[in-house]
């Protein structure tokens, strides 16, 4: 239909891919490949992932961040992703939203962590307008002073990625796999996990959140829905993504190193 599309003339184009239950490693692989090999803007929304998985930042040290014994005993998969940032445990209750943009996609946006974080938080401010005292606190999305969304980024020569994992819901037991991190934001004030985080489901229905996020994105971009199948052939077979599972051996070695 001409009219709704043409009202967006002048907005940069952004491809929108929506998934449900896509495995997080696959999502990370797609994201990294799009960041490094595509020249278009992308928005990825993944409504939950399959199995509970620990996802660490690129420099995450398992010994410091995880209760390795429990992780090994329960065979919880651990991924080291290609972006910076902290550690999360994700499952079907996590909603992922990712923006991959060219440096000029957002007018006047400086391609550095803080400005990008500020831009994304203003986008989500529209989503959570009037709900739960939403704001960006240091690098996290919070309601009040409870975190419900964690962010990570990677900035390359001409592009950047900003991805967020939103705790729409979480399993209390899963949180026990994570240690209290050494590097924590000041506002955490030494609170335990459960006192520090909160669930988005107490504030907004899941589908409402995703729809509103897409709507808010549409005010700045002309969104074009794309199916993964449509781009599979374009995704280069030669690309080697860096996000990967840590092997049991690596985790065991980390546990041993910790004890010694």
């Amino acid at each position: 239909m001409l009219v709704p599309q043409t009202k967006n003339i002048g907005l940069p184009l952004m491809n929108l891919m929506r998934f449900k239950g896509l495995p997080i490693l696959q999502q990370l692989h797609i994201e990294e490949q799009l960041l490094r090999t595509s020249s278009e803007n992308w928005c990825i929304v993944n409504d939950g992932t399959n199995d509970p998985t620990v996802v660490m930042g690129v420099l995450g040290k398992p010994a410091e961040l995880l209760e390795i014994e429990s992780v090994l005993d329960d065979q919880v998969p651990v991924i080291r992703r290609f972006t910076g940032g902290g550690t999360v445990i994700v499952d079907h209750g996590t909603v992922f939203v990712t923006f991959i943009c060219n440096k000029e996609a957002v007018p006047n946006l400086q391609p550095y962590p803080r400005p990008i974080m500020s831009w994304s938080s203003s986008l989500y401010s529209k989503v959570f307008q009037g709900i739960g005292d939403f704001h960006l606190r240091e690098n996290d999305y919070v309601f009040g002073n409870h975190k419900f969304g964690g962010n990570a980024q990677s900035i390359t020569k001409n592009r950047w990625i900003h991805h967020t994992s939103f705790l729409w819901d979480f399993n209390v037991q899963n949180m026990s796999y994570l240690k209290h991190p050494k590097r924590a934001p000041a506002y955490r004030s030494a609170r335990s996990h459960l006192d520090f985080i909160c669930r988005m489901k107490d504030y907004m229905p899941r589908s409402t959140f995703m729809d509103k996020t897409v709507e808010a994105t549409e005010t700045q971009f002309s969104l074009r829905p794309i199916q993964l199948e449509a781009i599979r052939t374009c995704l280069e077979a030669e690309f080697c993504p860096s996000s990967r599972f840590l092997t049991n051996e690596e985790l065991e070695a980390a546990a041993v190193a910790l004890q010694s």
Partner: protein
Amino acid sequence: MLCRRILLKKVWNNGRRWLLPSSSLSPVPTTADYKRHFSTHIMAAFSLPQNNQFTLKIPYMENRCKFSSNAVADLHTNGIVDVPLAQTGEGIAECELLKWFIQEGDEVEEFQPLCEVQSDKATIEITSRYKGRVAQVLHVPGNIVKVGETLLKMAVEDTQVPLVTLSNLENEKQPDTKSNKDFTGGVLSTPAVRNLAKEHGININDVQGSGKDGRVLKEDVLKYATQEGIIKDPLVTATATADLGQLFHREKSSLLESAQVSGHYEDTIVPLRGFQRTMVKTMSMAAKVPHFHYVEEIDCDALAELKASFQTNNLEPGLKFTFLPVLIKSLSMALSKYPMVNSCFNEESVEVILRGSHNIGIAMATPNGLVVPNIKNVQSLSILEITKELSRLQQLSLDNKLSPADISGGTITLSNIGAIGGKFGAPIVNLPEVAIIAMGRIQKLPRVADDGDVYSASIMTVNIGADHRVLDGAIVARFCNEWKRFIEKPELLMLHMK
């Protein structure tokens, strides 16, 4: 002369100011002194009354933070430079080095990624500011590197030194007011101002700075030069030009100004961003539409009388009457008779949607580019209501507060280019509309009456640009005749008064 228009959507902006030329059809008054400065501002292209050229060479620069202010200090005499960790943005004190993309001995191009670091939540690629060879790598992955600390040493050719200075100049063109300090020489000023001082044989350290932190501004140099008798006629200072466009930092105008003064005619690369970039896209799309243009002259004597009458009998102070509202209302009358001209074309389904409302867009020139807010439902508005709405939209443009609703949903566009100058233009349709009308300046021209006598008439030339896939010459000609009738005989509008 080409007339340009832009369909502006809400863009991310940091409170930039837009200014609007007077909406009346008379040219913007300027003094000869302003002329020299105008080439440096967007407004320049619009404000030169004698020059009908649209240059649109706007020195709009993205903040290129590829070079730090330490660049000059980095250079050692033997051609080896220290490359510090930079490009991480504000507030980041240190990063952990993740990996190198290069190794010692590698040849590296300017802007080639050197390494990846992590700070907090972000991994960041650090690119090279020089072309050269990696002489020595000073950190290994896992090291914590403070911002500003040397990452590696590079062997660069001496000829790159002027490049480094040029990069400082490039830095100066940003609208970012924070980082434009040049610390060498003890006195704060930009390279452009230093050039100007040098040009006049003035030692910049002798000049009293009136800017922030005592920095020496262009007008300080000029004032000093006048006082010392070095120059006779001081140029109009940047404060005058600042009245016209606060968008650009003063130093930017002095940069280009002094470039001309000192004879440094160098190429400037201007990446198109924001509205300009949008214009590239919209124009490219509009260029695919087969246009034809229809030109007509309209006698505006009756219109001038009407405007005078409105003004004399104006009961509302603060309300200014111009020609536009009557032109807009009569346009709507003509559209009622020829609805095809007020339509959108759907290429895919090969359908024309005859729009019910007459949402007439008025092109407005701002320092940022053209913006086209529209007046909704003109068919249901009186001329007085149109006047007020127009004034409201103009004020919002001035305050940079136009909402997305104000600038979307237009069905036809009027470009009052005559307010700036020109006889007529060849406008390009504002998609998805099918027609656009450029109105030239009203000029007093001699006409020949039926009895052979020559008389003077106020003539406005209009050029209607139309999408030839939807409209043909006959429809546009008849539509224009109808519109012209209402303008030349505005009393006919009363026939349709309800």
